[in-house]
């Protein structure tokens, strides 16, 4: 309605044309999203309800009568629950230490404790295999020191999954809770102290209840991401034959011996989708309930909790965490990548760069993977940014009815587990498209579709929030100065949201570069990606080359984050 009024008052043809162009683009995007998101979703549901071309509940009946279905469901819930409890406890503790206490070296911890968040989880899992596998470094050191013939702890299995998940997810809890901890009025705690409560009592009675919505929200966020994770249970679980929902779906899809494999995996996927969507609703409600976490009030100076005798334990804890979560895994990958041969003693003679050379120049699929992943990530990110610009402008400025619907649709592929998204795409595009008579299955295009739909919401959120920050009067000032819609958009809006457009591009580019979950199901020969090749080399037991490629990927990711951070002046990236 607001848009109509504006057009009437200015009455210029090019303004109407400008809107028409946007609305036309919006319609195209909407139709495309229907084909790429809604159609696969519908196909997934249909497949789960179909057997021998007849509508039936037999797939579900078969799944629910198998013990293995319950086993993997319980396994998924078990590792996700324990993993997220661990991650939340660690993350909240760090957030509190860094936001509210006088722990020394805050800047150092802030930089390094975030690193696990940036490393692709499956690479983290591989690193921990190098450390705590049957012949992992830590186990070998233990055997050498203790003289024991048995390793200290073999990571394969449920406890390993819980451990690695916690290590790579605690930064989420840390980041979510840091702000609320900082914004909490210190007088609330001081009022409890002067009322007679000790420091620990104050934490229990005041701080934790006030933080409950934020802590609960982060817990659910982590729980959801763990339920959906494929890389960690694949790397750590398969060797111990320990399966969770995502890896079970993956195996069912690849089980070509069973004629009903796709229908059954669709049924399993629907179970996982229901859980994911319920969790998302709960999470949204918990976070919306935030009302009192941030109570305003002019506080004289944010008084920091004096740790006193707890200072040393706190520093030890943080140092240990940096070692366990950052230094040890990265060192393990680097050392393995530099090794001349597997199992040779660690001496200067045995250090070589040959593995890097080999993986980059002698292994065609690795070289293809580098090119493919860079191209795929860059292409997807660019499409995402362009589409996001249109969607955001439709929602924020033109307020076209129904444009919010697009927002809901693009959230879907991000909210449901990647394995399910991949299955839905396979089911939808296995056969040639009805009208166009082309098949994108087994081509690089299905990866483009997967990446764009999955990461679209990341770019859209970044650009939309930037657009919302720009008051409409800035555009109106340009209009009254003589600019039309096109010029105002070009001269005022675009320059102001430039940073967020870059940020949105990188936010989509980085996860796309190292994507594994979708890619492992959608890739084909000649269309390998970095994720699939690293994972494949690892499964083939090519340890040295895996390590070399994993190290290169890690360095690229950390470097890109650094660039993002500089470009956005510390707003995004780390």
């Amino acid at each position, binding site marked *: 309605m607001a848009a109509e009024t504006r057009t009437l008052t200015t009455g210029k043809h090019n303004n109407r044309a400008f809107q028409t162009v946007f609305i036309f683009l919006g319609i195209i995007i909407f139709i495309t999203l229907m084909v790429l998101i809604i159609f696969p979703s519908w196909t997934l549901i249909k497949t789960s309800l179909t057997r021998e071309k007849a509508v039936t509940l037999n797939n579900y009946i078969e799944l629910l009568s198998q013990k293995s279905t319950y086993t993997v469901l319980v396994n998924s819930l078990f590792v996700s629950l324990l993993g997220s409890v661990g991650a939340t406890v660690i993350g909240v503790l760090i957030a509190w230490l860094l936001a509210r206490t006088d722990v020394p070296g805050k800047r150092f911890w802030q930089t390094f404790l975030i690193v696990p968040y940036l490393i692709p989880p499956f690479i983290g899992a591989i690193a921990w295999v190098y450390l705590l596998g049957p012949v992992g470094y830590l186990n070998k050191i233990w055997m050498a020191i203790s003289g024991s013939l048995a390793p200290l702890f073999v990571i394969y299995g449920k406890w390993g999954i819980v451990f690695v998940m916690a290590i790579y997810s605690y930064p989420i809890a840390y980041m979510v809770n840091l702000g609320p901890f900082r914004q909490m009025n210190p007088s609330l705690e001081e009022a409890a102290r002067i009322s007679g*409560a000790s420091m620990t009592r104050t934490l229990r009675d005041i701080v934790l209840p006030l933080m409950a919505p934020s802590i609960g929200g982060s817990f659910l966020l982590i729980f959801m991401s763990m339920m959906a994770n494929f890389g960690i249970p694949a790397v750590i679980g398969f060797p111990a034959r320990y399966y969770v929902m995502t890896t079970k779906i993956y195996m069912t899809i690849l089980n070509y011996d069973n004629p009903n494999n796709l229908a059954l995996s669709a049924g399993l996927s629907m179970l996982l989708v229901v859980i994911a969507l319920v969790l998302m609703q709960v999470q949204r409600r918990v976070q919306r309930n935030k009302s009192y976490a941030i109570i305003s009030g002019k506080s004289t100076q944010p008084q920091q909790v004096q740790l006193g005798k707890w200072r040393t334990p706190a520093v030890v804890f943080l140092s240990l965490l940096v070692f366990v979560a950052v230094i040890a895994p990265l060192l393990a990958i680097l050392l393995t990548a530099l090794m001349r041969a597997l199992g040779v003693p660690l001496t200067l003679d045995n250090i070589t760069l040959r593995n890097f050379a080999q993986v980059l120049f002698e292994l065609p699929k690795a070289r293809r993977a580098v090119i493919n992943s860079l191209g795929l990530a860059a292409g997807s990110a660019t499409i995402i940014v362009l589409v996001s610009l249109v969607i955001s402008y439709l929602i924020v400025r033109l307020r076209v009815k129904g444009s919010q619907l697009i927002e809901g649709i693009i959230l879907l592929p991000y909210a449901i587990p990647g394995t399910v998204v991949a299955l839905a795409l396979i089911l939808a595009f296995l056969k040639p498209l009805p009208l166009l008579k082309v098949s994108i299955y087994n081509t690089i295009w299905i990866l483009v579709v997967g990446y764009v739909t999955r990461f679209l919401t990341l770019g859209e959120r970044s650009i939309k929030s930037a657009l919302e920050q720009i008051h409409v009067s800035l555009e109106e000032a340009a209009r009254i100065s003589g600019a039309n819609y096109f010029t105002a958009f070009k001269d005022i809006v675009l320059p102001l949201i430039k940073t967020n457009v870059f940020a949105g591009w990188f936010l989509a580019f980085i996860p796309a570069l190292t994507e594994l979950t979708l890619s492992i199901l959608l890739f084909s020969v000649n269309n390998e990606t970095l994720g699939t090749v690293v994972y494949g080399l690892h499964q083939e037991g090519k340890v040295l080359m895996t390590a070399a490629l994993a190290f290169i990927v890690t360095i690229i990711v950390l470097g890109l984050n650094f660039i993002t951070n500089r470009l956005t002046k510390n707003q995004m990236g780390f």
Partner: protein
Amino acid sequence: MAELRLVNLCKTYGDTNAVKDVNLTVRDGEFVTLLGPSGCGKTTTLRMIAGFTTPTAGSILLDEVPITSIEQKILLPPEKRDMGMVFQSYAVWPHMNIFQNVAYPLKFKHFSKQEIQDKVMNVLGLVKLENFAQRMPDQLSGGQQQRVALARALVMEPKVLLLDEPLSNLDAKLRESMRFEIVELQRRLKITVVYVTHDQAEAMSMSDRVVIMYNGLIQQIGSAPDVYQKPVNAFVADFIGMANFIPCIIQDISGDVARVILDDGTENHYLLCPITSGHYSPGERAVVVVRPEFVEVIPYQGQGGTNAKVVRQTYLGDKSDCLLELGKINLRANTQTSFLLTPGQDVSVSFTNPILLDVER
């Protein structure tokens, strides 16, 4: 019932002295206000009393028992000090209802359920909130939240009540009525109070004694009339109320009275000033402080008197604010609204209650 004593209290942050050598005794049942501009050290002092900030040196004694003593390595944590505190931001816990908020300090005192119920309802009655016990804080106005904070600070009958700019977040009307409510409660409960504010009207109207602080130092301690009528230095004179500062030179001294010549460029304006503090000798430079209400403006009396020129007169309703030129000096005077002056007009002025102060301070 308690006497609070601060002895040589110091607090330094890096190179800056936030509080320098503060000595103060707050008598049993006394209402003492720490007053000063922001950054003067008043809040730091209060937080040291509460135990939230550790002093760099000095000690704090409650009924002659040290609760903070850097020299003796004593530092009682806030929860062991038996004090109540009202915070600037109210700090009413948003996840507890009013009753729970006020009852919280009693949790640590081993009271029966019935005793807690009685005590909380009693103190809620004192702050006129007995009907709000089951409400949540976000259902209360700012003034009501402030009363909850007050009730919570009073419920355990603390030895000392600390208030940190408790009224500064309230609107002007409410602020004034809360002033009297707090004072009335304090008189009724005969409780020892340390109150921090930057608002001089608040300090003057509420306190038994005002402690004026600046740059971490206590400038003057005294009753409201004391600090207004007998400021010990230019800062206090300037901070409390309006003041004209007129440089002068001591001519001669007889007894407690100094005869000074005003250094306004005319060299013929003389004044007699009582000496209340400090030592002066003839020929020395000093400053005469005169409040605008003590500058009397009368129609021009001819040569010989103290003559000035009108710059402008501003109507303020209850009085007029008059800007005069006394030689090369600007002078503010309050006149009756019926006494109309025109810019450029010559007038004669006379000063009552002049205060003689050192130049340096």
